[in-house]
Each structure stands twice: as structure tokens, then as C-alpha cells.
């Protein structure tokens, strides 16, 4: 403050800086706190965990067809969805018989599955596979960081993009994919 009681531009600038620090700091702390559940569950920003398939369907408006995967069941923290503006869902499932994770279903309203839900893996083999109703899928063989080999089948339809990441025999993967296409409206 100057001697005549008026405030200088420097004073105003300092007050503005303090305000920016306070409000910016408050917003940053809140944003960080909001991200904690995601960090604890190991999900990237913008992705939410759902307690059930019904909740995931309600949040995204996507059909996840639980009846088509009767031999599998979702694992804990295995149902993830993205924000509603670009709805997509991923369901990691274990085979009921051996309780090993064998299948992840991805569905998105758009043309592509968001990278936040499906981490890209190095693929070493890719072929095109004809499916029912004139659909064609791309089938890739991919290696996970632990060295296991998985198959990734992806196709697009009027409903959006669908992908299956599968650890097992290719014939079983094809059977699941065909059942899904047949069940589609």
C-alpha cells in the first residue's frame, strides 16, 4: 500500500496472485482427491468401475449381453466404463470352470474402443475373418507383458465397435463372436 492509502498495481497483482494460488490450489486438491479411487483401483482417468453389468449398461446405454457369456463371469473390479459423452465398456471375465481370466469384452458406441479401456498390445499376426450377417472382423494375435499370447477380435456394426480379447482356442472365440452378432438386433 502506498503512503496516501491507495493501492498500487503491484498490490493488486499480489492480491490476484494469492487468489489464483488459493482457488487454483483448492481446485487442484479436489481434483487430486477425486482421482484417488481410480488410482487405488488402477483405472486411468475418465474410467469408472461398476459394481454390476446392469450398472454398466445403465451408465453407457450399451448392451453387454450377459446371457451370451454363460460360461464366464465378471471378475472383481472387472467392469469398467468411460464417460457418457463417448460411452464404452470393458468387462473382464473368468472362465467359471478354472477361475482363470480368459475373456475381456469391449463395446463402444463409436468406431473405436477408447485406449483408456483397452491398452494397445504388440500384435505379431493379423488376419481378416468373415462373420455372420456380412460382418468381417480383424483377428490379431497379441502378446501380454507376462509373455502369454492372447487373441484380439474386433468388428464394427451399426451399434458401434465390439472387441473380444481372449485367451483360449480360436474356435471358441469365433463361437462367442458369432453368437453376439446373431443376437444383435
Amino acid at each position, binding site marked *: *500500500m502506498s503512503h496516501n*492509502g*491507495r*493501492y498500487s498495481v503491484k*498490490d*493488486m497483482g*499480489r*492480491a*490476484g496472485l*494469492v*487468489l489464483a*494460488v*488459493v*482457488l487454483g*490450489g*483448492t*481446485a487442484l486438491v*479436489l*481434483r487430486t*482427491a*477425486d482421482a*484417488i*479411487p*481410480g488410482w*487405488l*483401483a488402477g483405472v486411468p482417468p475418465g474410467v*469408472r*468401475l461398476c*459394481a454390476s453389468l446392469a450398472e454398466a449398461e445403465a*451408465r453407457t446405454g450399451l448392451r453387454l449381453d450377459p446371457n451370451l457369456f454363460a460360461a464366464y463371469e465378471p471378475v472383481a*473390479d472387472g467392469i469398467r466404463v468411460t*464417460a*457418457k*459423452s463417448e460411452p464404452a465398456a470393458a468387462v473382464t471375465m473368468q472362465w467359471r470352470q478354472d477361475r482363470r481370466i480368459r475373456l475381456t469384452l469391449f463395446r463402444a458406441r463409436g468406431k473405436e474402443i477408447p485406449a483408456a479401456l483397452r491398452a494397445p498390445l504388440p500384435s505379431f499376426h493379423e488376419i481378416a475373418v468373415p462373420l455372420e450377417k456380412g460382418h468381417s472382423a480383424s483377428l490379431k494375435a497379441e502378446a501380454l507383458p507376462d509373455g502369454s499370447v492372447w487373441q484380439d477380435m474386433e468388428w464394427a456394426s451399426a451399434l458401434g465397435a465390439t472387441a473380444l480379447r481372449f485367451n483360449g482356442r480360436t474356435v471358441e472365440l469365433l463361437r462367442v463372436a458369432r453368437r453376439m452378432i446373431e443376437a444383435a438386433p
Partner: protein
Amino acid sequence: MRTLAAETILHGIVAAVATLMFLRLRPVHVAKIRLRFWLLALACPVVLTPVCSLLAPFRRGETFRDERAIFSGSHFANVQWQGIHPGAALLVALALMGTALFLRDLIPFAWDVMRGRANRNEVVATPKALVVAVERAAAALGVSAPRLLVEVTRQPILICRGLRRPTIVASTGLVEWLAPDELEAAVAHEMNHVARRDPALGWGLMLARGLFFFNPAIQLIARAAVQEIERRADAAAVHSLGNPRPLVRGLQKIIGVSRTNPNQLGASGWQDLHLHAIERRCRVLFDERAESPGTPARWGFVALAVGLGVILFFTVA
């Protein structure tokens, strides 16, 4: 209702911390301006939160929570530790803390009110020094002299109360303990409460505390506001007398009497806290730095109010 209660706690904490940070980083030495900042912090959970809930119900929707909100408590719904939801446990702990803070002040407050009622009949002839001090202070402030009640006790009491009709309550012990200039300063302090209708503000703060008894932030903000009300009256009394020493001496005597005669005032933890608050006021009176309530304070207040409003709008429980 539970979500609204949780949101008032969340908003109260955010508003209190932001206000405290602002006042620490850009100290404001004028009590009446600091009081405005604390009342702003109090208005956030008491007024803004219910208004936002009422006028913007879309804030509760999933789209708003997932895509627009800075913070959403619902994101903690799936977090569990040993079968316990940490978010829910934290809320319960905060609610218990708020209730404890409320009761810790309510019990002595209720006791004071009841004691005041019980002593109503013990009115004696008002000491002349007290009448003169009240009339002089009233004339200086341009208000009519309020009702004066005198209690017969050696305990030095001087309080202002009364929602519709402010009354100054003094004790015979006060006149006994304080020198004439100290009494004049103490009365000038209370007369400032009368002139500003501070008892009504005090009751308003108590009402907010009672309605949001579970909210620790509201309890602490209201306490800070009460301290600023006292400092504002101190500053006004010192301004009218031109010297802080009589008021400080008077306050110090009250502390001295309380410390040497703990049975007179009750040696409870609450009383110790009260005395510490008076000691802090004495330090502030000697440390009072001149600062006019100029543009940055007003500008900072408005900007903080707008900024907090925006942040809290995008913060949902």
C-alpha cells in the same frame, strides 16, 4: 438428505480451508473485514449448498459427476478397505467431531443463559461509575443507553445480550476489580456490540451451528466469526478511546482473576480456551496495524466469493 448433509460438510471444509489460506497469504488486519470473510465461508455450506441442490438437481446426475464435477464423493462408493467404506467412515468421524464441537460450546452457553435467568432477580442499585461509562459510550456512538442489569457476584462479568432489546449485564465484581478507565474501555467494547446489534448476529451464528450441529467446519467457522466480532468491538472501543492500554489492562485483570480464583469462573477446559482467546485479543490490540478497508480487500472478497461459488458448484458429495 444424507447426500445434502455430506455436501454441507464437504463444502464447509473447502470454504474454511480456502478462506484460511487466503487470510494467511494475504493478511487482513481489520477485524470487520476478516469477519466478512468468515461469514462468506459460513454462507457457503449454510446457504449456497442447499440453494445449489434445490436449483441445480442435475448436479446429482451421473453425467455431471463423471464429466463436469471437480470432485464427486460418489467416486468413492466402490472403495473398500477390510469391508469398510473409508469415505463413509470419514463422514461419520467428521459428523461426530462436529457434534462434539457443538456440544462443547452449547453446554457452557446454555449454562450462561440459565444462570442469567436465575440471577435476574438479584439486581441491585447500579453503581454510578457503570451508569456514567454506559451513558458516555452511548453518547459517543450516537445510540440510546441500553438497559443495564447488575448481578451481585465477585466474578467480573460484563456481557451484552438480548435479541430484540440489547441489554448490558455487569457484575458488582467488575466494578470492584476494574479501574475507572478500564471500566470505561470495557463498557465501550460492550456498547459497540449494542450499537451493531451483535447479539442478533451471535444468535444467528448459534442457529447455524444448531442446524448444522454435525458439521465441524461450520462449528469452527462460527467460532472464528465470534472471535472477529469481539475483535471488531475491541478495535472500535480502542478507536473511540484512542488508547488500547485500558482495555488490555481490563482484559488482563479478568484473566488474572480467573487464573487466581479458578472456582469463581469454573476451571473447565472451555474456560481455559476462553481465556486463551482473551489473551490473543490482548496481543492483537497491541499489534493492531493500520490498514484501510481499501480496494484489494473488497476486490479480493468478491473474487474469492465468486471463485468459491464456482468451485463448490462443481464439487458434489
